């Protein structure tokens, strides 16, 4: 499966590597403190209905975040070398 360009578009079960955080300093600090930083592997666990939040896992931490904020997390584009079963 091809990796989408942003975390907001990752399908449940899919993983990718973070390429860049395209957010203002405040949000970037918070995302990094929770583990979302360049070079980290991130996996989509589930997406809530009605455009609700996303449930992702990065390193040893599980997070919920809104789609608008996840759209600021850029992913390395390319074939996912390690497809993970949900």
């Amino acid at each position, binding site marked *: 499966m091809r990796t989408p360009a942003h975390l907001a578009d990752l399908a449940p079960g899919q993983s990718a590597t973070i390429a860049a955080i395209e957010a203002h300093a405040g949000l970037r600090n*918070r995302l*990094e*403190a929770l*583990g*979302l930083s360049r070079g980290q592997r991130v996996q989509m666990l589930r997406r809530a209905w*009605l455009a609700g939040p996303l449930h992702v896992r990065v390193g*040893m931490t*599980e*997070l919920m*975040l809104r789609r608008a904020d996840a759209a600021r997390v850029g992913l390395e584009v390319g074939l996912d070398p390690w497809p993970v079963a949900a």
Partner: protein
Amino acid sequence: MAGGRVSTIAVLGMPNTGKSTLFNQLTGSHAHIGNWPGITVDLMQADVDLQGTPAQLVDLPGIYDLRGHSDDEAVVRRFLESTRLDLVVVVLNASQLDRQLRLALQVRQLGLPAVLLLNMADEAKRFGVTIDTTSLAEELAMPVVLLSAKYRRGLGEARHQMAKAIAKGLSQEGPGGSQAPVAHLDACLAEGDGALQRQIAQLMERSVTLPPQWRDRLTRRLDGVLLHPLLGLPLFFLVMALMFQAIYAIGVPLQEALGTLLDSFGQGVIAPLIRGLPAFAQGFLLEGVYQGIGTVSAFLPVIFLFFLAMGVVEDSGYLSRAAYLMDAFMERLGLDGRSFVLSLMGFGCNVPAIMGTRVMRDRGLRLLSMLIIPFSLCSARLNVFLFMASVFFAPRVGGLVIFGLYVMSFAAAIVTALLFKGRFSSNEPLVLELPPYRFPTLRQMFSRAWLEVRHFWFWSRRFIIFGVVAVWLLNNLPFGVEPASAQSFSGWIGRALMPVLGPLGINPKLAVALLFGFIAKEIVLGGLAVIYGQANPLALGHALALDVNWVQAVSFMLFTLLYTPCLSTVAVIRSESKSAKFTWFSVLWSLALAWGTSFGFYQLATALGWGSLVLH
């Protein structure tokens, strides 16, 4: 050594690391609220003896990042910049070092003497995370202790390392005393920021082994059900409904038993003791002070149970899931999942819930959350409703009335958010941790609930004592009047309020109770007892039922639900919003909503002739 000087230790850590549990265990729950220059929020502190070294431990708010932008993060920065510290204890979650080491590195960057405590060692072991503490301590140049505050393991070693670090600091100490506060904190942190990621990666590689695969099957499976797109929300509301059911099934009989006990103690022990005093003083002590306080103390068991249940829901990790489940809905109200969780906590007591909005950075979002939290039907109001429902309705109908009031409480919050979301708009990002599911230990649960009840009592007792005394005096002055009669001060006040409250079906006696309910809802029942001159709840119920009909009673309950919860809530809104204008707005809006709702209900019900229906 600086003979006998008390060392100051700050406890710093990320949220969800069990920092408060650890703090309570290190201090033996002797903590009290301390005042620190330049810090406007309450910080818990405690005096401890660390293997012969006297020290005061200060619990700082849980933060993610010393460079972060939330209010709590600013508080910690101000504290570090203004306080002389002998030691910083950094508490991290052992299984999440891959991101949490950041905080330890920031503390090291500031050059503060530190001890690193890795909590939740039990969980790290369960998840397959192994940590070489010796190597980590060497790399970080600070002592590292692996421990589990929940199962009380490693606490002795932690104390030992803390004492050793302080002794080392004292022996190097110059004539100026302990370490000066941190200067140029922001610049100093900015300098180290670029290298943080690389340093963390390096430390992880040298000292920590992560499992090749995620091992927490339990969390994965539970989330599959509890966060289910279709089942998630109904399950959540079912759990909440069962929880409230259980609290009142156990709590209400306890409350009644305690009430009867306190009543007979007053009649049997206190009344004979003060028999020699003048009648006015006797009445004041027994009917004013003792009965007022007794009525309130009787419902402490319900509050204890409430905090116990809420603590379990929170510590288990389910409350963060509630934020996930509700966020899509809350976003449309201009709020977020956290506002929902805080509103739920407000069902216990609004005051801590409003303080909890500190985690929000955006002012619009924070103010809108503060505006809706006071509509959460707190335990003090519930106490009034349980009593009124039992007086005016048969048990089955009474349950429905209570349920209806909960629905009204949600509806008031939703209407308020919809009306004002434009005025308090926000674009705050929402990124929250969903911790693994945990089972709190019995000891943890009970000590926490006990702490909350103590805190509640500390907050409310001044208001309660002041309130019941004031009600009694207004009822019995000027000297020689028939208590609570039309000639007493309270009679005058009640009549003066009639042009406003009369159209709601609220009579002068209920008006006085509402007036004092402004101080605290805990006073309403005690106040009614004093006004009707009936201490025994049964007798009070009869007197009340003779005086007003059920439509008036429901109108009174609606008003009680919606108007300003208590002075403590107003005070905390004022201190958290730092705006007198917003505080006034919040008070006036809730009064307007209360008046409008009660007026609408009473006029409609009267026009339909419901007042003469007998429902009992």
